[in-house]
C-alpha cells in the first residue's frame, strides 16, 4: 500500500496506452466505492491505480440507436435512475437503480464499475445479463465485444485482459410483447446487499400467453457469481404462462440453483425466496405485456 501510484489520464487513449505497457498490478478506479474500501482493508493491493473518473464525458451516456441501447461505462447510477428511457422501457434497470445503495453512492457509482467488480453484490449485473448485454472492451490495440454471459471466471474475476478497459454496455431494447422486472431481498430497505436478487426479461408470442424468450439472471445461481438460470429458461420456452407452468418452473429453478448459506441468510431460505421472485416476475411481466397490447 505504501508504494501505490496513481495515474489520472484525461482521456481514454492515454489510459489505454498507459495500461498496455504497465507491467505492474493495475486497477482501474472510477468512483472507488467498491475498490477503495477493499484496498484499505488490504483485500487487494494494486501497485497502480488508473483513475478514469476525470474523462467522464467521453464514457458517460445513455443512447438508444435503432433499438440498441448503449450505456457508457462511466454512466452513474443516478444517470440511470433519472433516464426517461430507462424508466419507461427498461423496468428492471430502473427498479435495480432505485434500490441501489443510497443517493451518495448512486451519484458516483458507475455502470462499468458495477460490471467489472464481478461481485454478486452488484445488482446491475443480473439486470444486464437478463437483457442479454454485450460488453465493449477497448485496448490500445483495438476493441472487442463479448457477451456479459460468461464474462465472469469466478468471484470477483472477469475475462478482461489487463490491457483492457470496459467502455460500454449495450443490449437490444426489449421489443413489443416484452417486459423486464427486478426483485431483491435484503434485511432492510436501503443500503443493503441483496440476499437474493433476480432479473427477468420476458417476451411472449402473439397469443400473449406463450413464452417466446425468457432470460432469468440471479446474483448467484450455483457459484458465487451472477449467472443465468438456463434450465429454467429452457423449461419456460414455448410454454404458456399459467399457474401450473409457474409451479413447475419454480421446481426447475430450485433444482438448478445451489445457494449457499452465510451469516446473512441460509441457502434454503434464499431458494424459497428465489422461487417466489420467479413467480412474481413472471406474473408481473406477462401481465404487463398483456396489458399494453
Amino acid at each position, binding site marked *: 500500500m505504501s508504494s501505490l*501510484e496513481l495515474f489520472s489520464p484525461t482521456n481514454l487513449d492515454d489510459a489505454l496506452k498507459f495500461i498496455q505497457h504497465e507491467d505492474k498490478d493495475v486497477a482501474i478506479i472510477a468512483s472507488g466505492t467498491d475498490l*477503495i474500501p477493499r484496498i*484499505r482493508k488490504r483485500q487487494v493491493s494494486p501497485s497502480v491505480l488508473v*483513475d478514469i473518473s*476525470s474523462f467522464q464525458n467521453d464514457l458517460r451516456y445513455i443512447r438508444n440507436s435503432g433499438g440498441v441501447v448503449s450505456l457508457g461505462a462511466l454512466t452513474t447510477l443516478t444517470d440511470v435512475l433519472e433516464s426517461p428511457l430507462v424508466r419507461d422501457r427498461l423496468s428492471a434497470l430502473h427498479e435495480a437503480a432505485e434500490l441501489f445503495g443510497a443517493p*451518495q453512492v448512486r451519484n458516483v457509482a458507475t455502470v462499468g464499475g458495477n460490471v467489472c467488480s464481478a461481485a454478486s453484490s452488484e445488482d446491475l449485473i443480473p439486470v444486464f445479463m437478463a437483457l442479454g448485454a454485450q460488453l465493449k472492451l477497448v485496448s490500445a490495440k483495438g476493441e472487442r465485444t463479448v457477451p456479459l454471459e460468461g464474462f465472469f471466471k469466478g468471484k470477483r474475476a472477469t475475462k478482461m485482459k489487463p490491457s483492457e478497459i470496459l467502455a460500454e454496455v449495450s443490449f437490444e431494447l426489449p421489443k413489443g410483447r416484452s417486459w423486464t422486472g427486478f426483485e431483491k431481498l435484503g434485511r432492510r430497505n*436501503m*443500503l443493503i446487499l441483496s440476499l437474493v436478487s433476480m432479473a427477468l426479461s420476458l417476451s411472449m408470442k402473439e397469443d400473449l400467453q406463450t413464452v417466446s424468450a425468457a432470460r432469468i439472471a440471479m446474483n448467484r445461481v450455483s457459484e458465487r457469481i451472477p449467472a443465468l438460470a438456463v434450465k429454467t429458461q429452457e423449461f419456460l420456452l414455448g410454454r404458456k404462462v399459467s399457474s401450473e407452468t409457474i409451479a413447475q418452473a419454480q421446481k426447475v429453478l430450485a433444482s438448478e440453483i445451489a445457494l449457499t448459506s452465510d451469516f446473512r441468510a441460509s441457502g434454503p431460505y434464499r431458494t424459497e425466496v428465489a422461487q417466489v421472485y420467479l413467480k412474481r416476475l413472471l406474473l408481473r411481466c406477462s401481465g404487463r405485456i398483456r396489458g399494453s397490447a
Partner: protein
Amino acid sequence: MTKRVVTINVNGTEHSVQVNPLDRLIDVLRDELGAKSVKEGCGTGDCGICAILVDGKLVNSCLMLAAQCDGRRVLTLEGLLGDPTMKRVQESFVVNNAAQCGFCTPAMLMASWDLARHSANPTTDEIKVAISGILCRCTGYYQIIDSVHQACGESKR
C-alpha cells in the same frame, strides 16, 4: 508514493494541496483546509456521515480520493453558512429538535439543502430518499423529516 498537487475549489476558494494517491478527500478537507464540519462515522462509505457536495452532487467524502478532485468544486457546510436556504433549514432543525448529538447534522443539512434547492415541495417519501444514505442513531429521523418539510414551506407532518 508520489505526491501530486491538486487544485480544488472548496467553498468558493481555490486551494492547491499536495496529496498522496490514497489521501482521502475527507482528510484534506478536515486537516488541511479546516472544514471540520465534515465528520467520519465509518470510513467505508456505509454511513453517509461524511457527505458533502462535489460538483453539485452529494457524495461520501471518505471514499473519494483527493486526487480525484482536481478541478472540482467542493461544498461543505462551512461554505453555506451565509446561504438563505441553508439558514432556513438550520433554523428549522433547531426548532424541530432535529439535531440531537449533532454528529450526522452536517451531512443531513447538506442533503436537506440539496433537496430544498431542487424541490419546492418535497413529499415525505422524497425527503426520506434524500437522506436515506445518512445514518442517524439518535433522532429516528422523524424530526429531521419534519424540519425539511417546514424549511420547504410545508406545515408539519
